[in-house]
């Protein structure tokens, strides 16, 4: 079974630019999550999709972040316009059931200069 894949693995952009991160969950996993880790701090929850619906987006920092999961398959996370404090590693994870362990991708390391 293919794991969770994220693209790109690294992205370096300038402040004010736009970046779109992509996540392909494990096939058949209805639950998809986005997390972010900044500078060795805790891995912070951003949001949770069940199929194409946003179940919980309480962790999204502000309206510069937009997550979508059209068709309930892959998901994108767009940051527009990017700020310096958006730098960090963005992880995507998926799970079969809502109470099941999470399967993580390798993350996208975003650097905003």
């Amino acid at each position, binding site marked *: 079974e293919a794991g*969770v894949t994220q693209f790109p693995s690294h992205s370096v952009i300038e402040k004010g630019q736009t970046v779109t991160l992509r996540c392909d969950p494990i096939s058949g996993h209805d639950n998809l*999550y986005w*997390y972010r880790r900044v500078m*060795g*701090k*805790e*891995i*912070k*929850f951003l949001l*949770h999709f069940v199929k194409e619906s946003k*179940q*919980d987006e*309480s*962790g999204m920092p502000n309206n510069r972040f937009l997550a979508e999961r059209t068709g309930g398959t892959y998901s994108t996370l767009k940051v527009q316009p990017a700020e310096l404090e958006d730098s960090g590693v963005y*992880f995507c*994870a998926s799970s079969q059931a*809502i*109470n099941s*362990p*999470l*399967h*993580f*991708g*390798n*993350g996208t390391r975003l650097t905003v200069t």
Partner: protein
Amino acid sequence: SQQGEEDPQALSIQEGENATMNCSYKTSINNLQWYRQNSGRGLVHLILIRSNEREKHSGRLRVTLDTSKKSSSLLITASRAADTASYFCATATNTGGFKTIFGAGTRLFVKA
């Protein structure tokens, strides 16, 4: 606010020794999970313990859960250099919507 907090932040031991990491959390939970992350990779699930369980084993891993103290511990016995990684506890909670919340992790270094 941060739900899970691991202690210590970093741990360095010799190969063959046991490593113990602790986790404290704040709200009620459905289950608690431990994950491992090797540098530059994603997190890998190690073990899940439900809120009505007190202890669980998996190979060289032993996890305890004390819901009265809102704490858990992960013991790795007979550590190996390959166990060098960051270890995270994560709590699955229904508070404010169902989500799995992670701490900042413990960095474990096992010297050969």
